[in-house]
């Protein structure tokens, strides 16, 4: 592992107005390095998804800053933040959010197409990445024809196809059975995590904690503990 790839400083976020105003994340400082698999865990409502959203350039914090590879993300305008997400961050959503009317390979190619790569070139690259995740034979099927684990791997392929430096996983095992969930995380650890990439995972599935380099525990919007995981070198 190398220097800090991501540095979040004093992040706070409130939701609601007046009496209903509630603090979701309060003064959180956190960093992650290249080559690190960082888990953010905690009970429901502890603020872990809000924190992840602020780090990944999706949700603007009320206070604090996020610096990724030297770029102060929240000082950029909206279009540049969208560009930051497109070029630097890969997302794997809990429910995958794949387009059922597109083929698997077209779903994977979306980030490249958004980066204005030519259609054939993007599809070619997406096929190569589908091969990496072991789904080359399913490239032309619609995602609906695939199992939950296969759809998860399609979502991972879509997240890594444009070679982002930061990968964000939101509850990656929530829609999968225990065995498939473990296999997916093993795969991510083995094939996706590189020394030039950080992987941030929000989860409350303790069965996959063993793959973490560090585990950040949150409660009531605050970090209450940071543990070294079993895989910490």
């Amino acid at each position: 592992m190398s220097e800090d790839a991501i540095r979040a400083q004093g992040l706070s976020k409130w939701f609601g107005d007046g009496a209903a105003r509630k603090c979701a994340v309060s003064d959180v400082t956190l960093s992650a390095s290249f080559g690190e698999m960082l888990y953010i865990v905690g009970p429901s409502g502890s603020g872990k998804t809000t924190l992840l959203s602020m780090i990944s350039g999706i949700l603007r914090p009320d206070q604090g800053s996020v610096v990724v590879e030297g770029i102060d993300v929240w000082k950029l305008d909206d279009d540049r933040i969208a560009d930051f997400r497109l070029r630097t961050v890969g997302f794997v959503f809990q429910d995958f959010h794949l387009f059922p009317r597109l083929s698997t390979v077209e779903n994977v190619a979306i980030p490249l197409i958004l980066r204005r790569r030519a259609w054939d070139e993007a599809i070619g690259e997406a096929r190569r990445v589908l091969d990496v995740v072991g789904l080359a034979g399913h490239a032309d099927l619609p995602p609906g024809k695939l199992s939950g684990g296969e759809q998860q791997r399609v979502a991972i392929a879509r997240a890594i196809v444009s070679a982002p430096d930061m990968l964000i996983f939101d509850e990656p095992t929530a829609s999968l059975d225990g065995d498939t969930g473990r296999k997916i995380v093993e795969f991510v650890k083995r094939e996706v995590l590189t020394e030039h990439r950080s992987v941030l995972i929000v989860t409350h599935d303790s069965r996959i904690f063993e793959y973490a380099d560090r585990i950040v525990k949150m409660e009531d919007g605050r970090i209450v503990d940071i543990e070294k995981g079993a895989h910490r070198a």
Partner: protein
Amino acid sequence: MRGILKIAYKLLVNDRGKFTALLMGITFAVFLMIQVTSMFAGMMMKASATVSNTGARVWVMDRAVNNVAGSIPLPDYVLDAVRSMPGVRYAVPFFSGGALARLHDGTYQAVTVIGLDDTSLYGRPSLVQGRIEDIYGENGFIVVADEELAKLGNPKIGTEFEINDHRGVVVGMAKVAASGLFGIPTLYTTLSRAIQYIPSMRYTMSYVLVEPASAAAIPRIKEAVAHLGYDALTEREFIDRITVFYKYRTGMGMNILIMTIISFIVGLSISGQTFYTFTLENLDRFGALKAIGAKRLELVSMILFQAGVTAAAGYGLGIGLCALLIALAKLRMPDYASVITFGNLGLAFGMVLVIAAISSYIAVRKVLKIEPFEIFRT
């Protein structure tokens, strides 16, 4: 951007059920709008048939005339006065009136009789059979060989009939650009014979047809005619006046307008609702695209492109369907009054654009409102 639009296209057409519903909505709306407005255009073309078939550049008439069949006879001095006006190359009298023809089998048939200036035969139709000079022969009439011909018992050259106890003989068959609105056969003869055969009032001349020396002379002629207390209208102005009459004074225009609005509302409701449902179904995916890094402009372009593709396809299908129906109808009913004009097409195109714009506006609002953060919560 092409790749993004290709994605949008695939999202649209691969959802066959919704795409079909969207297409049907717009196709049906376009079909109805064009069908209704082309029927109106067809009727107006027929209502102005005498004007367009005659081809005179300027028509002089009583100010109260609002359609060609409702002419008010002009005193003879009007013709003399018009002929003496600067800018008039020549002016001729013109008669248009109705009569009952008694056919060979003893039945009666209403006819329109056009009386042409005896000297010049100005405004005469093209003959498909016979010679024009035979119109000067005894009791000579030229019959328009259109879809109404059968009502005269399909006469041929030499066929005889009676008009007000006067003998009439068919001496020629003519073709015209448009037939009349009321399904009445048309006969051409000389002005003097028309006046002689058809009972008329003190004045006999329906219109004065004017050939101006140049286009620039027309305003001066109009002004001079206005001083006489009459109207001088160009061919286009006269046709417009007839259209205005049917549109606003007969209730026909209001009916057409209501039908067009209903078609528009039907199209808008079907397409708007389907497009909205289509967007709602893909809303979380649009949110995911936003999270991944799609910009607002790209998302808006996707939706507008989808709406545009559907509108263009539905517009084309609607026109095709309407043209097919009109062609089939004309096979069975040759005098079916329906004609697709550029005006109809433009109106329907404008309305389709409005349907697409309203449908996509609702979808765009929805997509732009979704926060990518929400994707993490679903």
